[in-house]
Structures are given as structure tokens and as C-alpha cells.
């Protein structure tokens, strides 16, 4: 007999659909760690909105890049060039504004064009030439780093009123007191980078959940051969995903440039791995097909919480953050394996 599994479509089962399991794992671990921080350092201000918004603004550039990376990982690919492209963006802006005296907007548009184009080219190489994404994007990374060094070996500081204005933009979080809006104490605000991050998360979610393109991304990650046989535009989707990721890398670079107000050819070295680990911690599977922007957002926050706790502790060496992040990553990779293994087992026993 065909197994007629009972149909369950209540709101509760919709929420507990097994496809969200990784997101819940991240949420659970985040809550545990956040609770730990709250209990230990609540009196020092760990639970204030200020701490939370600072966690956002310190990691916005990683998060923006992780939006694109999430999509790439869902297709089953990987992109190692993101940090190099972000660094290149910083160089373009710094060199263009400070040395060439160009309008910053021109530099930004130029960077967007170059970064997106590089992404598209890499995507095309991956799909049409069948070069593994790891190698293709490693090449992209070396090229971007090389161009950075060609532009300048020295750090170039950005001194420009527009950039200063953009970097200084702050939206204070207000609260209503005696019929008047006053700044929250301690002062909490979000800046342009955080705004870009939030906007990209929303855009990414809409693309993934509400467009055919986004669903094709999942299908390709699930089984590329099937996706092709189902008549989905595999080539176009893959190329565009890498293009979109290039765009995210540039935006990330802009967020970072606003953060440090300079361009340096060695900036953000190794950050691509931070980006990837945020995604993995956020439940995006490296094997493709599974992942959500919401999970990635939690991954970024989780990864930001650890250094925050260490800062609040005050006595621990900041390298402990790396060790804890490593442990966290290990934990999530093990969870992923367990989830995959248990679903395999479930299939076998049927």
C-alpha cells in the first residue's frame, strides 16, 4: 500500500515543518548563549538595546556579504572571493576619492559594476566550463587581491565630506516619555551599514521565498540534474546567483569602508571564512539546498555575541572568541550531519 501519511496542516505543524529544523537549532543556541550573557553581565548592560545595535553595526559588513553567500551555498556552491572583492571596493573608493578626486558615488557605481561583473564571469565559468566553484572563486579572490595591491600597497584614508556624512548617519532609537520622543538611555542607534544589512536581508528573503528565481536556487542545490530535467533555467540561475553575490560583496565592502574610512589592500583577509561560518552556523548547508536568510541573520548575531561576552568579561583574551567560534562551527556541522543522517535513516526504514 502507498503510505497515506495523515495530512497535518495546522498552523503548529506548519511552524514545526522539519525543513526549518536548522534555523531552530541556531535560534536555540543563540538564546542559550544570549541568556548566559544576560545572567552573567546583565548588570553591566549586556541586555541593553545599545549592546544589540552595536553587535549589528560591528558585523554589518559580514552580514551583507553573507546574504549573497547564503544564496551561493544554497545552490551547492561556494565563493571565496567575497572578502577580496569587498577589499577591492574599499580600494576603489579610497583611491578614487582621495587620489583621483572623483565623486564618491562614481566610485561606488564603478565598484558595483566591477564586482557584479566579476561574479557573473565566475558564475559563467562555474556553469559552462564546469570548473569547481572552489577553484573558480579562489582565482577570483587572487585576482581581486592582486588588483588591490596594484592600486596601492599602502593604506589610503578616505577624507571626503560625502563619505563622512554617510558614515556619520545615525538613527537614534527613541522612546516616548511624557508625550515627548527622547533618546533611549544608554544611547542606541543604527547606522547606514546596519540599514544596508537589514535591507539586504529583506531583499534576500523576498528573492528566495517569493520569486521563481529564488526557488530555482533551492532546486539546483537539491539536485541540479533534476532541476535541469524539470525544465528550470539552471544556467541563468547559477550565473545570476554569483552575480548577486558579487553585488553583495561590493555592498559589504562599502559598509566596511564606512566603518574604517580607509582602503587597504590587505583589509578583510580571511573574512570570507567569517562570512561562510556565519552562514553555516545559521543553518545553511554546505551540501546545498537548505538555508534561510533568517537563519543566517541569527548566525551573524550568534557569532557577534561571543566576542561581546568576552568583552564584557574583560579578563579573557580576545582570541578565545576564535576558539568559541570554532567550537560553535563544529557543533553546527555535527548537527547538520545528524539531521542528514537521521533523514537518510528514515528513508531506509520506509
Amino acid at each position, binding site marked *: 500500500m502507498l503510505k497515506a501519511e495523515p495530512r497535518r496542516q495546522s498552523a503548529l505543524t506548519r511552524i514545526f*515543518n522539519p525543513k526549518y529544523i536548522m534555523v531552530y537549532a541556531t535560534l536555540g543556541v543563540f538564546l542559550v548563549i544570549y541568556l548566559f550573557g544576560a545572567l552573567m553581565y546583565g548588570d553591566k548592560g549586556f541586555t541593553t538595546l545599545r549592546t544589540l545595535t552595536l553587535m549589528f553595526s560591528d558585523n554589518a559588513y559580514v552580514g551583507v556579504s553573507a546574504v549573497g553567500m547564503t544564496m551561493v551555498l544554497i545552490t551547492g556552491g561556494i565563493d571565496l572571493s567575497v572578502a577580496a572583492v569587498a577589499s577591492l571596493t574599499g580600494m576603489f573608493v579610497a583611491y578614487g576619492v582621495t587620489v583621483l578626486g572623483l565623486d564618491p558615488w562614481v566610485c561606488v557605481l564603478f565598484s558595483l559594476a566591477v564586482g557584479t561583473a566579476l561574479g557573473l564571469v565566475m558564475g559563467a565559468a562555474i556553469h559552462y566550463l564546469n570548473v569547481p566553484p572552489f577553484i573558480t572563486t579562489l582565482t577570483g579572490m587572487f585576482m581581486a587581491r592582486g588588483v588591490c595591491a596594484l592600486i596601492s600597497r599602502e593604506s589610503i584614508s578616505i577624507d571626503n565630506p560625502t563619505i563622512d556624512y554617510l558614515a556619520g548617519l545615525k538613527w537614534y532609537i527613541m522612546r516616548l516619555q511624557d508625550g515627548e520622543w527622547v533618546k533611549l538611555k544608554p544611547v542606541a542607534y543604527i547606522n547606514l551599514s546596519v540599514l544596508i544589512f537589514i535591507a539586504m536581508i529583506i531583499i534576500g528573503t523576498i528573492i528566495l521565498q517569493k520569486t521563481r528565481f529564488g526557488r530555482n536556487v533551492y532546486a539546483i542545490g537539491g539536485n541540479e540534474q533534476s532541476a535541469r530535467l*524539470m*525544465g528550470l533555467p539552471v544556467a541563468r540561475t547559477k550565473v545570476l546567483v554569483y552575480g548577486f553575490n558579487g553585488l553583495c560583496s561590493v555592498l559589504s565592502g562599502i559598509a566596511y569602508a564606512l566603518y574604517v574610512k580607509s582602503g587597504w589592500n590587505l583589509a578583510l583577509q580571511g573574512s570570507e571564512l567569517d562570512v561562510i561560518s556565519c552562514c553555516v552556523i545559521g543553518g545553511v548547508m554546505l551540501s546545498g539546498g537548505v538555508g534561510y536568510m533568517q537563519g543566517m541573520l541569527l548566525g551573524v548575531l550568534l557569532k557577534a555575541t561571543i566576542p561581546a561576552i568576552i568583552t564584557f568579561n574583560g579578563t579573557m583574551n580576545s582570541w578565545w572568541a576564535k576558539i568559541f567560534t570554532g567550537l560553535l562551527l563544529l557543533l553546527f556541522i555535527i548537527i547538520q550531519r545528524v539531521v542528514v543522517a537521521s533523514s537518510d535513516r528514515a528513508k531506509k526504514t520506509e
Partner: protein
Amino acid sequence: MCLSNDVLLKMTGMEIEFPGVKALDGVDFTLRRGEIHALLGENGAGKSTLIKCLTGVHRMDAGSIVLDGQSIRLTSPQDAQRLGISTVYQEVNLCPNLTVAENIFIGRQPMRRGGIDWKTINARSSELMRRMGMDIDVTLPLSGYSIAVQQMVSIARAVDINAKVLILDEPTSSLDDNEVRRLFDVMRELKKQGMGIIFITHFLNQVFEVCDRITVLRNGHLVNEWGITDISRLDLVTSMIGKDMNEIYNLKKAEQRGDAPVVLAASGLGVPGKVESISLDVREGELVGFAGLLGSGRTETAEMLFCVQRPARGSVSMRGKPVGARIPLDSIKRRMAFCPEDRKRDGIVADLSIRENIVLAVQATRGFMKPMSMAEQQELADKYIRLLSIATPDAEKKVGELSGGNQQKVILARWMATQPDLLILDEPTRGIDVGAKAEIQRLMLDMCRQGMSIIFISSELDEIIRCSNRIIVMRDLQKAAELDGEGCDQSAILSIIADEETGREAV
């Protein structure tokens, strides 16, 4: 049975050439509205190739396709779908990570206010699956459901595309009887709606059950087209393999001398929970068949003998010397060889060439310090390609590109090349066509005549009876009986297997 004459699809003069092989040579095929048309042929006859032309996967070299009176050119699967040609493949081609509903609708999702309308997708999928007799939660990921459900999902997808032509490429190979019956109901329903269905299968009784017409291909050529009532089953088989059945099965068992020395002696082998305790002897030139249900301990016994699974107790000796194996390589060095059940997973290395696959085991016995020269390798490969008549242009073709029967021959060649005293074959004829099966059986018997001993595991009793000198029947992880191969018949074996297991169907 009424046959409609309203032509829906006409393919004429189809030709495709792959490097070294003419896969299709002037094949014609006609599908009419409201008919179920069986496309039959042995592995490598060109069925899949023909289907892939029709679905836009392969580009044809010559020929024309006319659909609904219009000449069409197909360059991609999207093209085919747009024109109303849907395919359900043997291996489920869906995305396991997506929900059932999404698998049905992906690529053509209904949109609402600029976004995908998930509500409609879920509701309509639920309705579709219910109409196919399945009340399942379509919002769960596909990977949680059995293959049978997945197969139905892919049919639901194909049907909902408003296909004019539905191609079912061996959809029943992983379904049980009830599931097959339900699929047939769905097919008949679709036929009534005027859809043309192309049905590819290896099961002839299914052909006679649902099909209206049959087209047979052989070696890339069209043999003929018949109405279902115009051909007998025997004629059909003969036309598929191009030879007389009797001629194929004209096999003679290898003579067994009673005084032949014992090659393999195993006593009291066992692994808790897998095989209780088994003892057996195999003599030189003897073919010992292992019969029994799946899970009765057949495969496990073979794996213990070869030390894939280390026995917890008992001993194995070859020609009187204890093997004392810890890993399979020890067994290989004692001149044993083992072709495992799942040739795709444990047997062939699909990306290596035929030559590389054949020399693998020989090389392993010599150790990697003593590599074989290219000339030696080529000689060895060519010898076995000739000996086993493996159908390939040359020894450098990737094994993954061969048909199932030829892949099996390559594995046989690999082990024959080590010149073992004992060859263990676990289901060597599964999933290959009748002609190739007979060839493999003939090869086994030839090897026995030359003095090799063989342990032959199979689910098909008739081939066990046809080839074995002695038959060991396994039941419930134990040796249930040992029968003489001469004068043994199916019912005798079945009654042993069925003992205490009544109700479970044998084979």
C-alpha cells in the same frame, strides 16, 4: 480494445550517433491520442536515447518529430515541457529538499501580487495528490516520503503540466503490486482524457495489462510495431532479443566430479544478528547456488567469507590453509574474489575506463610498488573484452557509459583476471536484460568447467536451478537446507523458504 488512429506524435528516421556507436538508426515511432504505447527493447536497444531525443536532452543527427501536425525542434527539456511533452524518469528526478507541493509546481508557480502564491500551490497540490489516491501532507519535504510516493509526485507534476504526451520511463521498477495497480489506474484515467502515454518497462506482464500497442527496438533499429492483441508473449521476447529463447537458455551445467578437492571450507561462521552459524564446503569446479529471500543471510554469508564483514566466530580455509583474513585484500591473496550486490556502489568505478576497472584487482594483489605497465594493462583489458564480448569501441571508454550488462561483465573480468580459485557472485544478473543474463550464466559455467569454483547468489530461483551443482537454501539467517542441483525444482526450494514464513512471497 479500441485503437484510436488519431496520430499525436510521429517521429521518423531518427538517427543519433555517439562516439563509436550508432545509438539510433532510422527509427520511426508513432503515438496516437488516447493510447498507452509500450516501448520495449533490451538494455542498449535505444529506448532511452529515443526518449531523450523527445525530451530535448539529446540533439538528434537526423530525423523529424511532428507533434499535433506541427514539425518541432527540441533543444532543451524546457522546450519539450512547453510543447506538452512530460517525462517521469526511472530514478525520481525531483528535488528532495523541496516540499511535495513545490516539486509539483516549481518552474510554473502561480503568482499573486508579485510573489509566489504558496497557498494556491499547496491547495492545488493537495487536491492533485488526493485525486491520485494519496492523502499526504504536501508541505513536508519530499525526502521524507517513500520512493513510491515520490514517483507519484513526479507523475502529478507531469500530468499537471497539461501534457499531451506523457513518457513513463520504467516507473514501476521500485513499486510494489498495489502501487503499480494504482499507477495503472491513473494511466487509464489519463488515457481517457486523450493523452498519449509512452510506457517503458522490463515487465512484460505489465505491458500486456495496460498497453494498447507495442513498439520494439533492437540495437538502435526499429523491429516492428504491433497492436497488443497481435503478438504473443514468446514472439515479443524473441523479437526483443533477436534470438530464440530456447537457444539462449541452452545451457549445460558443469560436470561435477565427486572426488574433486575441496577448495573452500568454512565452519561455524557467524556474526551475531547477521548470520547464526554456517558451515560449507565448495569443491573445485563446483557451482554452489545460494537461494533465499532478501535478508535471509545470503549476502552476509558471502561478505563473511570474503571478510568484508569480519566473522565473529568460525574459520575459513582455502585449499586446507586457514585464511585468517582481516581485510578483503587478505582474501584476495588467498585467491578469492567477490562481486558485490550493488555494482553501482561497490563494484564499478564509473569514472575510470574499462581498462582501469579491469586491472584494479590484479594491481591490488601485486601491491602498488609493482605497477603494471601500460602494455600489460592493455593486453589484459583487450583479452577480457574479447573473452566476455563486452560491447565497447575500445578499452578506454568510461565504465559509467556502458549498459548494465556490460558493466557487470567488466566486474567479472576484473575478478577473472586475478585468476581466483573461488569466485563469489552476489546477484550478478540483477537489473540486466535477458540476453545479457544468459551470457553471464554461460560465462559462469565456462569458468567452472575450467576448474574455478563459484558461489552464486541470486533471487531468481530458475537461474539458480539452471546453473548450480548444489544449492544452499538460506532462511532466517541460517542454512535451512542443502540440495543437490540435479533434479531440483522450484517448488522444493520454495517450500523450504516458505517454512515458518508462510505469507511472505518468495523471490
